[in-house]
């Protein structure tokens, strides 16, 4: 129903352009991801390096594919880390 309402609204406006409020929302999301991390870039880099180091003790990992993000939900803040694994390190 929402998608339908969007189509109708665009038709009423007479253009296919994205609503300016959607542009605003996307821009805000990006800015806030950065603002919310609140840590200086050097600290974030250090955290990233240490995370990789710890996980690497147990798994072979794809360092370049690591992504890190601070997200907030209604109740909490969360550090979202996505680190693709190649395989577990076999015990010696």
């Amino acid at each position, binding site marked *: 129903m929402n998608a339908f309402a969007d189509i109708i*609204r665009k038709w009423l406006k007479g253009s296919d352009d994205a*609503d300016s*409020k959607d542009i*605003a*929302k996307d821009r*805000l999301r990006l800015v806030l991801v950065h603002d919310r991390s609140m840590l200086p870039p050097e600290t974030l880099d250090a955290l990233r390096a240490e995370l990789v180091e710890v996980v690497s003790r147990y798994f072979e990992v794809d360092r370049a594919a690591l992504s890190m993000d601070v997200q907030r939900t209604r109740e909490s803040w969360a550090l979202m880390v996505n680190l693709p694994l190649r395989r577990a390190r076999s015990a010696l």
Partner: protein
Amino acid sequence: MDGRAIVITSGKGGVGKTTVTANLGSVLAQSGCKVCAIDADIGLRNLDVVLGLENRIVYHLVDVIAGRCRLKQALIRDKRNENLYLLPASQSDDKNAVTPEQMRQLCQDLKKEHDYILIDCPAGIEQGFRNAVAGANEAVIVTTPEVSAIRDADRIIGLLHAQQLDTQLIINRLNPELVRRGDMLDQQDVIDILAIELLGIVPEDQGIVISTNKGNPAAFNEEYEASQAFWRIGRRIRGEIVPIPNYSDNGNLWSRIGKKLGDTFRRRAS
């Protein structure tokens, strides 16, 4: 008596903190609660003119804290409502004239005599903000549906989280026509982004400008749409469950579709 101390804050300036403070103060007082509104913007007093009480100021907040007068002497009773009091800011001192500990003590004293203490916070996140927040148990964040105001509101929410204050949001100056056209963030967009509980929405209303010109808060003039919004918010603060109108509703969608179709055919025909 053990009143509730609520700080009205925003981060960004000019989004309507003082207007919200004056109107909520008026609404709560009209409902029979005893209210004290504190102007915590030391050096840049404003709440007095919005309430139309600028000619009655003798003592101010810094006088009370410095012990130059008693608290009761500095409180100005509103001319329209005997339940509403203003504690004005000083014009001459700077923000460092007050410490957070002194603000805490002041709010503690006021809570004994009032149901609600509304603290009008200065813009920014510096000393003035820390002072204004120090004595509060709850926070109301005011934002307009614009990127700059929402970004700053998010900063403030982060800071208040750390203080463990119960925090709610008021979206001010929402323009329903722009929302319907898709050119203004609607309430759901703002809530999605800020992840915070919504206390209310105040639609953009010329009545606010007119009533501020006169120094007579819009809440005293119930025909204004913004005034009705403030009354609903006041009831929610007092614990009533009052629905929030949905301004993104395309109430007149069918009539707009009909008009558009008519326009299109007329253009084809000519």
